[in-house]
């Protein structure tokens, strides 16, 4: 660790983080950081759109207050980078994270969060659940009567995460559209938030929800006895919460120190403890990239942090995708 950086950061005394991670999940991380450096965190949980919006608005107004943006909207983060809102920072910890998680020392993946399925244990049993991606398509097709109107998934039109999950699948898998059609045949219901989906599955209103954020789900099942989580063994995509240091950040040193800490073993362990699986292998206290891979059956396929994320930021392509999606779903 660079002592000068720490010194300068302490002088700044505070770091302002714009994030979509709710503070319950990151409380351990925040506490650990503040305890270690005595630097206060102004923790702004703004949601993905809120964070993006505030950063670009502040920049335009010349009133930048954000130091670090730490958001799960990978595509929006990449857009910020591309549009020049982020500054390069060669973190000494960058070497300890996988290469796919480091985009040109500007954008860093901090977590690896699997995308999976949740189901109501009173309605479905573990053994009935399909093992692979392809099985899932068959399963949906074969149990139409049982599942009619009782399958939930993200609405890519209203949810940025949903769009990311679906469009990533579409990029990775040719049979994605078969899945979409199968969902359509089951009369799947679409939701704009994880919360909405979880609640309906907990209550049995929906039997299962597909393409849900698995890291959350792993926590949920601890509390809700009638909820189960499931991952396909051959293909479990995972997204990552990306962090960047904002251009002209008012507290650049504290910002850099915070990013360092996010990627450090201590920070990663604190994240894992809060239920956000660490991208580092050596993180303890919860799932890390290796233990997670085991947990999901070995098919973990993290989404690479690269320009590919911007594919669907292009309006025509995006609209095309959404139209295809709606057509497949029969809406």
């Amino acid at each position, binding site marked *: 660790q660079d002592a000068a950086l720490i010194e300068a950061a302490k002088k700044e005394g505070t770091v302002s983080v714009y994030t979509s991670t709710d*503070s319950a999940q990151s409380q351990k991380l925040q506490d650990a950081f503040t305890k270690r450096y005595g630097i206060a965190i102004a923790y702004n949980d703004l949601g993905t759109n809120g964070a993006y919006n*505030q950063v670009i608005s502040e920049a335009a107004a010349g009133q930048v207050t954000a130091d670090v943006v730490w958001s799960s909207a990978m595509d929006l983060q990449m857009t910020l980078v591309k549009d020049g809102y982020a500054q390069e920072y060669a973190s000494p910890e960058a070497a300890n994270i996988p290469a796919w998680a480091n985009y040109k020392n500007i954008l860093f993946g901090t977590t690896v969060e699997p995308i999976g399925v949740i189901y109501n244990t009173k309605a479905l049993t573990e053994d009935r659940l399909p093992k692979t991606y392809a099985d899932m398509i068959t399963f949906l097709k074969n149990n139409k009567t049982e599942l009619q109107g009782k399958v939930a998934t993200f609405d890519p039109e209203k949810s940025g995460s949903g769009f990311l999950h679906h469009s990533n699948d579409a990029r990775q898998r040719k049979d994605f559209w078969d899945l979409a059609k199968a969902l359509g045949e089951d009369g799947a219901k679409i939701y704009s938030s994880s919360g909405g989906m979880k609640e309906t599955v907990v209550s049995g209103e929906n039997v299962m929800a597909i393409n849900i954020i698995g890291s959350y789900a792993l926590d949920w099942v601890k509390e809700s006895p009638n909820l189960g989580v499931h991952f396909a063994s051959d293909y479990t995509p995972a997204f990552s919460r990306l962090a960047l240091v904002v251009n002209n950040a008012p507290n650049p040193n504290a910002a850099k120190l915070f990013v360092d800490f996010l990627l450090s073993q201590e920070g990663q362990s604190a994240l894992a403890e809060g239920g956000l699986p660490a991208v580092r292998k050596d993180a303890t206290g919860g799932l890390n990239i290796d233990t997670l891979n085991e947990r999901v059956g070995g098919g973990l396929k993290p989404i690479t942090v690269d320009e590919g994320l911007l594919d669907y930021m292009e309006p025509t392509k995006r609209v095309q995708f959404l139209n295809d999606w709606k057509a497949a779903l029969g809406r």
Partner: protein
Amino acid sequence: MGLRIAARQRARAALLPPQPTAKATDMNVQTQNPALSAVGVAHAHHYPAKMPVVGNARLYRIVVIGLLALAVLTPVGLIIYQSFLTGPFFSPRAAFGLDAYSYVFTDRNFYKALGTTTVSAFGMVAIAVPLGGLLSFLITRTDIRFKRLLEILVLVPMFISSIVLAFGYTVSVGPTGFLSLAMRDIIGIVPWNIYSLTGMIVIAGLSHVPHVYLYVSSAMRSLPSDLEEAARTSGASIWQVSRDVTLPMVLPSIVFAASLNVLLGFETFGIPLVLGDPNGIMVLTTYIYKLTTLFGTPTYQLMAVVAVVLLLITLPLVWMQRRLLRNARRYAALGGKGARVATLKLGRNGQLVALGIIGLWLFVSVVLPIGGITVRAFVDAWGEGVNLLDQLTLANFVRLTEVPSLVRGMINTVILSVVGGAVAVGIYLLVGLAGHRNHGLSNTVLDYIVLLPRALPGLVIGLAFFWVFLFVPFLTPLRPTLFSLFIAYVVVGLSYGLRLLQGTLIQVAPELEESARTTGATIGRTWRDIVIPIVRPGLAGAWALIMIIFLREYATGVYLMGAGTEVIGSLMVSLLTTGAMNTIAALALISIVLTGAGLALALRLGARIHD
């Protein structure tokens, strides 16, 4: 436009003193008074010029209404400006153009959403207004039992934001709600479906009854009973009295409550999001919501266009409202002859029927959603095949206290609603007085700007305020403080609070003010010593209302809150995305309890003033 305003003023003028009309001119000419004929020639075809109205606090009125207009029109203007651009207004790439309009107006989904919204808004009004009027009548004008308790219970549906409310309904009467399951056990099927347009309308309608109740009841409370007694001695039964005297007398508040509810219907977000969205029932607000992510990055110009459409809807509403209420004096009834205020006797059967109606309504709109929330707050699992008793836990509440931002959020919310609410009522009162017995252009301005902020979805107005505080230089230091939230809340609460006060102000008989003036009080003194004390019960009511509104407001704060300025409502929105429904339910329950306590306090204060 200018011409039309002038014409309207003239039409209105005919009912207000002193007014020029053709008839008056004729008489003027005919008069034989010699002193006049000299002047009369000059005035032959003119009505004598109006005398200047002095001592009428003109400057005060102009300044206050001007400031208010500034506070409302700045964000609104920003939205309108944004709608004519091709990108975010602050982006160097943004250019003028109607692209956004052409996108929205050629989008099939927009029309579908508009249609659905219209149906649901008017459906909601059709349920809420009659029920609200009936409730107000029963509670304020009759000797119905349990009045004190009912007064609070009736407002409970307002305690919670519509998202939480809708969520509460899913827990109780959703497809696997505890009541639905019980019903299915008894008759085999669940005879209702809340995930439908009808379900949305009924729920929205029932839960907006308090919005009507508040306005109408405060007007009814100050109605002297001799008017009703006169009708009863003429042979009218209680119901005829309420239909023929009480309701028409409070027409201004009913009309306002109706137009406000139409707007609320257009603006409501939580209920369609939770109940309509999964089945693809889309309304304008969820349509706007979609526009924030549809293109990856937020498309402000499209949102702005839809917001402009919503703004345009207010104009005919206000116009109609103004026409209906042209002759305000007709509703001034708080006369100078100290009439005794007595309540109508319901009789035994009347009591039973009335309590039955209220009980049923309370069951549907209070017990069901709040029961749902309460159940959810104390369990981790529910629904099909789950025995709720096995699931009881306090963990959800314990978790709240562990997260500093949630604790801060609760404190901030209480400060903002209790203190901020009181200050806001003070501000509304200043504005209300500025418009009181004022018939000029400034009053027209007031009428229109009052409803404007309510037409905009909270999310949009919050965003606009965020920009205002970001881009207006001397405001920037206020952005990270609660003050920015407060200002936005004041504007959002304007249509609720100001109108409530205006409705009460209108009922103060002019003689009461005139007698103070002739006794030697200036207009300011008159307001302070006569008008304000007379409307004080209304003030307490307004405070209670604003407190509730601020407590449960969620959308406005989404963009404005930051570290240290969290508020419960907006925190719940972000919790929704991570799926922490347990926490949301616990938070909601706490905020319901807080609201109930605050309201009881406000009513107590108001009550003491009233007796």
